[in-house]
């Protein structure tokens, strides 16, 4: 299990954070998404054997947001 923090600059309301949690359903390897509109950040816990950081960034883009990898936790 890995935990990575992403910077999401283009959230514009609280609902966006909820939309980002959809990643939990889209990518089966994603265990948990904690997104915060206040902080403009998203922390993803995922299984690195099935999901890559690129997958996460690509799927986030499909949802309409830009994810910038910040740091591993």
């Amino acid at each position: 299990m890995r935990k990575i923090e992403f910077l999401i600059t283009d959230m514009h309301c609280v609902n966006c954070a909820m939309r980002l949690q959809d990643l939990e359903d889209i990518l089966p390897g994603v265990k948990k998404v904690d997104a915060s509109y206040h902080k403009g950040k998203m922390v993803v816990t995922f299984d690195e054997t099935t999901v890559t950081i690129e997958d996460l960034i690509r799927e986030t883009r499909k949802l309409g947001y830009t994810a910038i990898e910040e740091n591993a936790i």
Partner: protein
Amino acid sequence: MTNLVVAFITGITTGGLSCMAVQGGLLASSLASQIEQDLAYAGKDSKGTIKPRIALPITLFLSSKLIVYTLLGALLGGLGQVLQITPTAQAILQFMIAIFMIGNALRMLNVHPIFRYFSFEPPSKVTRFIRRRSKSEGSWFSPLFLGALTVLIPCGVTQTMMAAAIATGDPLSGAALLFAFTLGTSPVFFALSYFATRLGALMEKYFIRIVAASLIILGILAFDTGLNLLGSPFSLTRVASGIRSGQAQEISDLQTTTSDASLTLNVVDKGYRPRKLHAPAGVPVTLTLITEDVYSCSRAFLIPAIDYAIILFATGEEKVEIPPQEPGTVLPFTCSMGMYTGEIIFDL
């Protein structure tokens, strides 16, 4: 009554759009499962047409939302009653509402990330729970439940209305206020839901500026209400009425100016007649307030400077004892919303 109309109009304009931006996703996803379900059974339809029945779930969703917010209004109004809100406290509340509205507008316009804290963010456990429910099977229960859950993610405009419900200081008025507001948002929700799926993000970006601009205007009005409640002579309402009054005002002055220490003020639906009263200085003055079939907020009458507040009967007479005032004193009076104003001048 007037503030209910204002609440309804706020709902049907800015409230509907801003709430749709926040809660629309919830409604859309609850509808999505219904649509999928209907499409799956479409083969069995004798007419052969595929028409997802989304009117019913939307109605269920909105009814549930309306009920929950009305209850919330009653609760907040009751809270306001317990807190015994004085005109000054009400003014402070109005200032907070103003700051909140303008802060939210700046947040929407993305002026600085700091303004994001003007929005209420539920913990991710709550949002995850809401999201899970919204994805579960479509039934009458799901839209009802999700409609009720919207109470956990109120949009900026709703939050301001909630503050206004506290300011009413009465469960019934609070309930009525949020009922009127939520009812106003309903047609917007209903209409927009028909174009649901892609709407969320698009709507948000397109209307965000209009909503923000309206919020700034409403924020300034709330600030002005606060000034009126404090009896400030510098509020926009007072300055504007000073410009408007002029000659017509003088005529009514002549009719009511008396040298004895009693004054009469007619409280009508559209405010107070006359708006300027002249009274003798240095003696106690009795002000008689007369109402006759009045159903506007002018019934909530305040004289902030002497800390006098009363809710008048729709029809009746009320006497206010005003202690002796220094010559030249101006005592402003106002309704509790700060919409209708007037003053007593002690210059006789």
